[in-house]
């Protein structure tokens, strides 16, 4: 497995990755709570970004309603915890099941009715918004006033209960992001990954070469939605309150995918790079524009930054950066 993980990766890239990972592991010991919270958010978007990346980068399906799976995972585990005292390490199984089920339904409908491209994207938006409205009107889920998880303080860190200090949550999301990276790398360099890339490049040629389209697209959708469901569980227990408007909205879905699109869709490190670029950028802009005290000024510059990135680095920042630093050796975009 180690061979598969490392095969084809240039030593330079490995060193940089190791340094980055080391810095992240050491962070809670040296960083202030504020910086740590920014890192936590970055890691969260890196994790969900990788999940979303699977669906578009490999199954070629653009999902603009991915917040649906965060919400499903969050609400499922939260309700199980509140109503039945089921702890998150067990609740996550249900959360994954619900997310995968919903994802499979959407994927199946999309496939069965041959819905692609922008139509599929709209379908995902519709499902997410529809679910959000349903949850908004469901009293037993807290409705629009929100669902609140009971928090007990001062009992130390308990990973399985997802209760503890900020550092504990940090390490959990760091672990999840790292595990996702390893998983994606293993998948991509397997039969599954190669079939996915073939589907992405030319569906019909892939089919003629023996690739069962439906099965492999559905696998991508299932893994993508399941992973996002796990993120939802973490989200629920970190924030301890869930509001349908915020959790399921299209605005949330867009926020989830920004990092990946900016970093580079279909690449391995794109989602992580993008998340660690945009989140701190947002904070920096907030800091710079706070003193002006004008509504909207931060988002104004933020939007301009994104436009600039799209216009000047349309393939994403990661491919450009890795080319610049010669991180990919002789291989190119289909490997990290």
């Amino acid at each position, binding site marked *: 497995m180690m061979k598969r993980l490392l095969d084809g990766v240039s030593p330079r890239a490995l060193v940089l990755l190791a340094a980055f990972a080391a810095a992240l592991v050491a962070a809670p010991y040296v960083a202030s709570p504020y910086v740590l919270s920014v890192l936590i958010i970055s890691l969260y978007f890196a994790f969900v970004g990788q999940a979303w990346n699977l669906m*578009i980068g490999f199954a070629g399906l*653009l999902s*603009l309603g991915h917040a649906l799976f965060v919400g499903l995972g969050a609400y499922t585990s939260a309700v199980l915890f509140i109503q039945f005292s089921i702890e998150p390490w067990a609740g996550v199984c249900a959360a994954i099941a619900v997310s995968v089920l919903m994802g499979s339904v959407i994927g199946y*409908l999309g496939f069965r*009715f041959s*819905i*692609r*491209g*922008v*139509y599929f*994207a*709209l*379908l995902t*938006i*519709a*499902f997410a*918004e*529809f679910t959000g*409205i*349903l949850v*908004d*009107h469901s009293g037993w889920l807290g409705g629009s006033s929100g669902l609140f998880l009971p928090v007990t303080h001062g009992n130390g860190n308990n990973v399985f209960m997802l209760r503890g200090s900020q550092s504990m949550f940090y390490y959990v999301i760091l672990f999840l992001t790292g595990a996702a990276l390893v998983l994606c790398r293993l998948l991509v360099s397997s039969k599954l990954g190669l079939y996915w890339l073939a589907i992405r490049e030319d569906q019909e040629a892939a089919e003629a070469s023996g690739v069962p389209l439906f099965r492999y697209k559905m696998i991508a959708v299932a893994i993508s939605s399941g992973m996002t469901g796990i993120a939802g569980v973490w989200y629920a227990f970190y924030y301890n309150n869930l509001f349908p408007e915020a959790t399921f909205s*299209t*605005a949330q879905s*867009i926020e989830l*995918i*920004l990092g990946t*699109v*900016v970093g580079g*869709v279909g690449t391995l490190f794109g989602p992580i790079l993008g998340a660690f670029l945009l989140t701190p950028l947002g904070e920096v802009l907030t800091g710079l524009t706070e003193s002006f005290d*004008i*509504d*909207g*000024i*931060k*988002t*104004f510059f*933020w*939007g*301009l930054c*994104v*436009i600039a990135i*799209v*216009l000047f680095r*349309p393939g994403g920042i990661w491919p450009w950066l890795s080319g610049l630093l010669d991180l990919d050796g002789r291989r190119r975009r289909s490997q990290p």
Partner: protein
Amino acid sequence: MPAEIYLNVAVSGLLTGLIYGLSALGLSVIFGVIRIVNFAHGEIMVGGMFVTLLLFRHLGIDPLAAVPVVAVALFSFGYFLQDLVVRRVAHLADHMQFLLMAAIAVVIVSLCLMIFGPDAQAAHVSYAYDSFEIGPLLVDKVRVYAGLAALVVSALLFAFFRYTDTGKAIRACGDNYMGALVVGLNVRRLYALTFGIGCACLGAAGAILVLLIDVHPYLGPSYTLLAFIIVIIGGLGSLPGALLGGLLIGVSEAMAGLFMQPSLKSAVSFGLLILVLLLRPQGLLGKAAR
């Protein structure tokens, strides 16, 4: 409930639907020809609404009279937006185009926030509370004028595409990009014109809507989604379809308001969207090929 109420609600819905249809025309024109999905649709319209408000507040121009001005202003905006910015992503993947339009939307909203602030604002015309009485029908004057204005602008648009050379040239581009290039049409300029026209529709629809609703910077997303629902139901790329879809959604939303809470109304629209996407993605009047 007495039948009159149904009738009144339906007529009110129809009139509102005409405006929705006009805004959806803008979306449909852009997608039908340039094949770009304008995710900044609602935000551009909101921009137009604020311009209308400005004209009303500072120059006393009635929103309906402002329609041509706002349409021209947004036309120029759209023309240059397409020519300078959007054109560069035309060959890129869907998600990149989407991200660009979403970012443009954010910039527009931010500008509106910066200039006008987050609070809702309205234009109170002198005849805001008058109404027409025709038998059992009791309709607000503003709604009637608004609906009629939308109808007039839509008719002008149809006429443009049907009878003018430029209009036909634009339709040609939409039908067959390569063919248009080959026969020597200046596709780049025509695309810019098309985007401009699409935004002009939005400007007109926005100016008309100012008569009916309060304006605030966050209106955008719901109108974008609404326009998508209308265009999908009516058929992407079909102009009559956009109007028809607008009428349908206008009426169904109004009628749904009679039977359920307002917030559930959008659930009905989304449900309809899902059904249409699954069962008849080309919509009512759209072309079957995608």
